[in-house]
């Protein structure tokens, strides 16, 4: 119980990015928590391993903010799971976060590799 502060700190560190990754993953259709982790792992070529202690608080928070909706459904392998999907508000949020991310990463890239611009 007491160690949860540690998790919270990490969530904060990743927060904006993790939210965007979740929203992006759900753009392709409803998915459950486990599926989201797998999808992020696979599409990042095993670089990003999202921890459950970060994912589930994020999912529940995003749902509370109205960007996600959830329902219980059966998976292909007949397992009952909670599927999350984007709401229209979530879609808008994803668009704005995506835009912000593009700007931010371009800016960071400019700082990190200035030679390219000179050449």
């Amino acid at each position, binding site marked *: *119980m*007491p160690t*949860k502060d540690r998790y919270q700190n990490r969530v904060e560190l990743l927060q904006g990015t993790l939210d965007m990754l979740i929203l992006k993953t759900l753009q392709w259709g409803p998915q459950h*928590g*486990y599926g989201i982790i797998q999808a992020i792992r696979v599409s990042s070529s095993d670089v990003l391993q999202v921890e459950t202690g970060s994912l*589930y*608080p994020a999912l529940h928070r995003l749902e509370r903010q109205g960007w996600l909706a959830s329902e219980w459904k059966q998976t292909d392998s007949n*397992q009952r799971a909670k599927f999350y999907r984007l709401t229209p508000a979530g879609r808008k949020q994803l668009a704005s976060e995506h835009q912000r991310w593009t700007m931010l990463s371009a800016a960071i890239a400019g700082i990190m590799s200035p030679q390219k611009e000179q050449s």
Partner: protein
Amino acid sequence: MNRRRRNRELNEELEAHLRMAERDRLDRGQSPDDAHFDALAEFGNKGLVQEVTRDMWGWTSVERLLQDFRYGARMLRRNPGFTIVVVLTLALGIGANTAIYSVIHAALAPLGMPNADRVVMVWTENAKRNWHQFPASVPDYRDWQSSGVFSSLAGVSDGGFNLRLADRTERIDGMSVTPEFFPAVAVAPHLGRAFLPEEGRAGHDQVAILSDALWRSHFAANPNIVGSTIVVDGVSRAIVGILPPSFPKFEKEELYTPLVFTADVAADRGSRFFQVVGRLRDGITLAAAQQRVAGIERRLSKQYQEDTGHSVALQPAEEAVVEDARALLALLFGAVGFVLLIACANIANLLLARGTSRQKEMALRAALGAGRWRLCRQLLSESVLLALIGGAVAVVPSLLAMRFVTSFGIDELRNANLIALNSSVLVFNLALSFATGILFGLVPAWQAWKTNVGDTMREASRSYTGGTQHRLRGLFVIAEVALTMVLLVGAGLMLRSFAHLRSANPGYDVTNVLTMRVALSDQQYAAPEKQAAFFERVTREASALPGVATASAIQDLPGSDNMHGSGLLRPDRPNPRPEDIRIELTDCVMPGYFDAMRIPLVRGRYINQADTSSSTPVVVIDEYTARVNWPNEDPVGKQLKFGTKKAPRRIVGIVGNVDQGILVKLLKGQIGQAYTPASQVPSPAMTLVLRTKLDPSSLIPAMRALVRNIDIDQPVFEVQTLESIRATSRAPQQLATSLLGSFAALALLLAAIGIYGVIAYAVGQRTREFGVRISLGANRLDVLRLVVRQGIVFTSIGMLAGLAGAFALTRLMSSLLSGVAATDPLTFAAGAALLAAAALTACLIPAFRATRVDPVVALRCE
């Protein structure tokens, strides 16, 4: 809400996650066991994930608080001994406070008038003549009325009425008021109407207004009663109104009649017999009003000899009604507050000791990532939980204490019927419990705040003693001792003054005397001869009752609230200036009064049957009057007169002094008392005094029947034995004494436990040291001295602080003391001695234990 369902759902969601992860691994060809454990390992701590996820749901602060409480409850259950001690200590402390709060809440209940701060009492003051809050005369009242300061200014005079009912006549507390009274109070009758202006004039005044309580108890709450007639003091009066239940009560009045001024009193500035209450005109401040009325009074005091030296004081009515109770209430509230503080100090000490043993738990939690705030909050929750339980248990002692207080029936404590566990008292109890929990909980919380993970963990095997903590515990003990010292001195003073009141010889014999009052109605017994004849017949017939030794009567018993003072003048000397005239209490008595009361005759004779309306006017004085007015002469045979215009009376006897009651004692110390024959100066209201050969109360039915047979309209009331009257007059002192005494005893016990705890703890900590000392040859007495010295240091500092505090605080209670000064050295010394003895005992127990330390064992145990 659906919190539980959400929890279940979250659990299921995470379970599903695990199962999917497991299946993937199985699909990849792992063995079932490996798949299971790998999935679990990858998932991490499920409980933790649940908790951090729940945090996202919002309103978790409440849930976390509940969690803290649940955890606290577990801790308390695990230490039942500790919990019970603390809860009981708190129950007594909080219970006492709750009870006293309910008493104060009732006694200080506002009068319930609209814009109550505009309603004032108008008092006459005369510093030179030692008049404080004196009643007014009609001409003064009229002059104040014309000042333009008041929108209504009323005269009120409280007393009682004889109300005739179907089968009997009953004495009802009541008030005569001028018609301005109801506009001044500004609360209208809820049935009927208030008095009309013309009903304040003679001939138009045969009306009455009933209180709600009287209407319900005696008229079955019949709304048609308005307009019908009742017989009050033998005179028919029309009921014109019924007051709402919330109508302000100044005393105990239930029945109101118009106050009508007869022509002779209306012209007499010296005749002061009623109180004045008024409502300030809009837009004028109290200070400005005070100045205006004082200006008028200054003019009057120059213009009229009767008003020489007078001034006027305006006092808010709300303040006036609670004034008498204030000293008593402040004393009790202070005492219970101290008891609670002592209890808090004790509990804080217990928690400190326990906190030391919980240090490792705290360090562990801190190491696992719990923030300081979290730890403090956890500990505070535990303390508050303890206090809340204590507060709930406190309801029992508080109810007992409330019943105890009301059983004294003290007049000064208004609205005794409101003393109960009502909602505002419960809110107070809850708030106090909460505050108490925070107060003593700050200590362990502070301790946790200071916890240094590294240090504590490193010292894992050794018990940890903080120097600061020990100093803090010492500080608590000093505070406890100081508070207890103040309480002990306060209780000691009350005890001594109560003992003084009790043992003081009243100057008469209180055993086997039955008293009862008869107040003849003015209308039926307007003629003084008729009044005298009535009482002569009653005493004559009463003397013939079996069991009655002597039957007589006096205008007002010694110590009664009704006092009649007159200026005593010597016809053989020139009249002194008005402010130098000595006031003498005068009462008329029937023959046999001194025998019945067993008031000794010093010289001359008593008043007897030979003193009639046609014989020489005579008077009997007490020794005090004789000594003060005729210092070196024999007054018997000399003359005196009461008031410049009155006829001289011949002094025929000197009798012993009697106790004139606390009121006189407090105001003046002592006043002379003179007795006139009722045959010469009749009074319509007398108190019958019967010395009996049997149990006095056995004669009550016979006496009631006797008076009823003579005149059914004249009820007897205030039927009491002289013994119980004496006891009642001491009730406030008795209440203060018994409450303060028990509070002080409780405090002493708590302080002793506190000292014991600290010293015992210190001894426990130093066991090894003592072992070393003893093995090196230290005398056991040296060890004893070492331990006791520490206790003595704490106690002495605390006692010195306490004595200083007591010196400053006890003077506030001087109005409740009699026969003992607020700084009585004997009481201070006795209190200090008692406390020192208790403290020493509390030190000696652990000290003896220290001397029995076996050096070998002590050294090995580390």
